[in-house]
């Protein structure tokens, strides 16, 4: 079951990226979008695909999700291009770009027939729209500045578990914006998501400067 949920999650993400003008998606970016969308899922009453991750030298990365990405590409749901193996001081890395494959449309149509698929698709569209609205230079950095990824005490190789909402620092920060806004201005879920993305972008800019 989890395999199918993961695949649906990935198909929606790549599709949303395609619509937001982020086509093709680098492998690195796919994993980072999966991570951000997992962190903020409770904001839209969605269940994260996975709420655990190991802090990794290449940034958020999920081996199981990578397998499913490659499987979807083999099935023709996604496309894979620019496959390239490199070896540097961080060790071996395989870069690749993923895009919408020939089989994506019928898969999406099928997925959207269920209420779950509809809701998940809507949520992931919002996440990618928020992500795509950021400055291009900040796109691949924002996940590294995320509040869960940088939670207090997290060092290299730390295991991060945000399955309990009170331990989900990204969610708590996104919801905290309403406390600093004027009392008559109650942000919507979407506004909280966008504000959080802007907040991460500001952190990236601050670090760069």
């Amino acid at each position, binding site marked *: 079951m989890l395999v199918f949920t993961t695949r649906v999650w990935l198909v929606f993400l790549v599709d949303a990226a395609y619509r937001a003008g982020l086509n093709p998606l680098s492998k690195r970016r796919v994993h980072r979008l999966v991570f951000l969308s997992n962190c903020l899922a409770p904001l839209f009453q969605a269940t994260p695909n996975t709420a*655990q*991750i*190991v802090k*990794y030298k290449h940034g958020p*990365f999920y*081996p*199981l999700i*990578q*397998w499913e990405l*490659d*499987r979807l*590409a*083999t099935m023709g749901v996604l*496309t*894979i*291009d*620019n*496959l390239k*193996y*490199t*070896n540097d001081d961080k*060790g*071996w*890395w*395989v870069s*690749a770009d993923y895009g919408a494959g020939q089989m994506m449309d019928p898969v999406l149509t099928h997925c959207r027939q269920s209420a779950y698929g509809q809701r998940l698709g809507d949520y992931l569209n919002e996440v990618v729209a928020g992500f795509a609205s950021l400055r291009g230079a900040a796109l691949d950095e924002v996940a590294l500045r995320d509040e869960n990824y940088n939670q207090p005490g997290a060092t290299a*190789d730390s*295991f991060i*578990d945000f399955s309990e909402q009170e331990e989900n620092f990204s969610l708590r920060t996104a919801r905290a914006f309403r406390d600093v806004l004027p009392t008559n201005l109650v942000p919507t879920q979407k506004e909280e998501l966008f504000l959080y993305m802007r907040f991460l972008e500001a952190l990236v800019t601050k670090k760069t400067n």
Partner: protein
Amino acid sequence: MANTIIRFPVLKRLKVSDYQLFPGTNGKGIDHTFERGVTVVVGINGLGKTTLLNIILRSLLGFNEPAKFDPYDPAAGSHKMVEKETEYFSSRTTNLAENARVEAEFAFGSDRLKIIRHLDTLAIEGLYLNDKSITGEQDELQHEIVKASGLATLYDFFYVVRSFTFFLEDKVSLIWNPSGQFEIFRILFFDPTKAKEFAELADKIKRKDSRYRNLRVYYNKAMEELKRTEARTGNKSTATEELRLKRVDVNQLEESDAAVRRKLEKALLGRTMILEQIQKTRLELEEDRRQQEGLLDSFFSRAFPDLPAIVSNILNHLDGDHGCLVCGTANPKKRHKFRDLAKQGVCPFCETHNIRTEKVGALTARAEGEINEIETRLQGKRKNLSALEAGLTKSIELVDALHGERATISSKLIAAQGELEQLEAKLPPSQEELDKKRKQLDSELREMKNLRLEIVKETKRYSTLLSEGRENIERLATKLTKSFQFYAGAFLAEKCNLSYREEKRRLGEEGELLSYPNFHVNMTSAVSPKMGTPRKEDTQVSESQKEFVDLAFRMALFDAVRQPKDGVMLVIETPEASLDSIFVKKAGDLLRKFGEDGKGEPNVIIASCNLNGTDIVRSLLGIDALDKEAVKKEVPKKIINLLKLAAPNAAVREDGKTYQAELDKALSK
């Protein structure tokens, strides 16, 4: 007779300005000087007759009202006055009566008091006694108005004005309502300081009577509860034992719950640790596979540089023992086949040794060595991962089982805690608690006894004051009765007189039964034409008789208490409403005579009348008794014609001329 002289207010002049309801001619509002005798406020429904009468009433009283007042049951209220915000006048306008004012000049005996109020708030803007301005806070100015009347309190002034001088539709009946009658007797015939003390005592006794009754209800209930509780103490040992056993149950369940909770926390921690290890092992596997694939990729990508990424990816996965992307198998059978072919330098698909593979050559020994090393590491990690995944499955099963166990224990614990609470509630209270309860009840009983004693003491004083007041009233009985007979005779065809008798009534629900002075009506009838029979209730007379007996009683009262040279005022709302045609003429004649009577200050009768075809306007103004010249000269002075002075409503806009013609006809000689 009371020592203090009471002066009743008599309206001399009324000006209403800037009030939308009464724009007057040329926007000047209403400005009317009241002559001796009857003045008629004439209009049709909705033109503001009642509003105008209320302006006169409120010019005297402002926003002051009793905290509780029921004109149909005045004895049930209290004498405490409060300020009540009113929107009565402002709500009838579209500008909230902004700048609207009433200027009313009253005679109180020989004194003249001019009162100017804002109509929106009823606040006093100006107060003049004999043309001399009086300044002060609102309550001080209101007190000056009361002082001019000689009455002791604001309540008494309110009652005299609202229930005696004004004869409105919702009035206190002074003849048919014994408590309403006694209240006016108290005010008019008691010594003023004693009248005040009497009213305060009545309020105090009623409050205490109410408090006593409430306490008694509570006390009786609490006493019964105490008795039941004391009766239960016999079964105390059984209940205590049952409670003790239930506490043991609850304690054991709490311990079990805590133990399972600890186990669960430990299991959750274990599960998280396994998850962490699994994730880290997967990443390590991923890295090793990447390295292995990378080493092999150097061969294939050199041999087939144009190979599509999808094919390279499949090939690298198979070759790197990374699973089959085509069928999804994690451990494909021919996983070494492609590597072996690469070692031989042949095409991995058709196994041909061709020019492309020749160019690239076989894998180097170094690369092969590295690959083998990685292979060994991978095998170890795969085993670890399998073991961890199996451990995770067990850990998840354990967590699920512990959740189930905890749910069972928790529900048992909640049930046991509920039972424990019930048992505790059933358990008789301790001796200490019982003593406390008894002491509390004793204290309440003492308070009840004290209240009762105070009520008895205060009632005694009240009775003394009542006796003194009664003597004053009895002294006036002859005068009052004679005067009433005169006025009632003018109204009624039947012979009608007053009879004095004591009216027994309790002060409060359970107070002492006291005798209050009271006059009631005796009247002859068709079946008893010579001997009058007592009529104690207004249902025992006709509607016309009811109203005019009450009016005759008021006139008689005025005669009994006013100073010989003082004028009085009666304000009557639509007197024609309850009169048949014969009464209309009689009533008009009598009211006119009463109004024109007196040798000192003039009496003023103000009556509001509808143009409804009856002869009441004509009768009140005595048109038939006047010559043509007098009608032309005098009658306009005695009319407040709302057809001209009030803002025209739809009926006036459509049929104003017809109404005016009807009025002209009523006033014509």
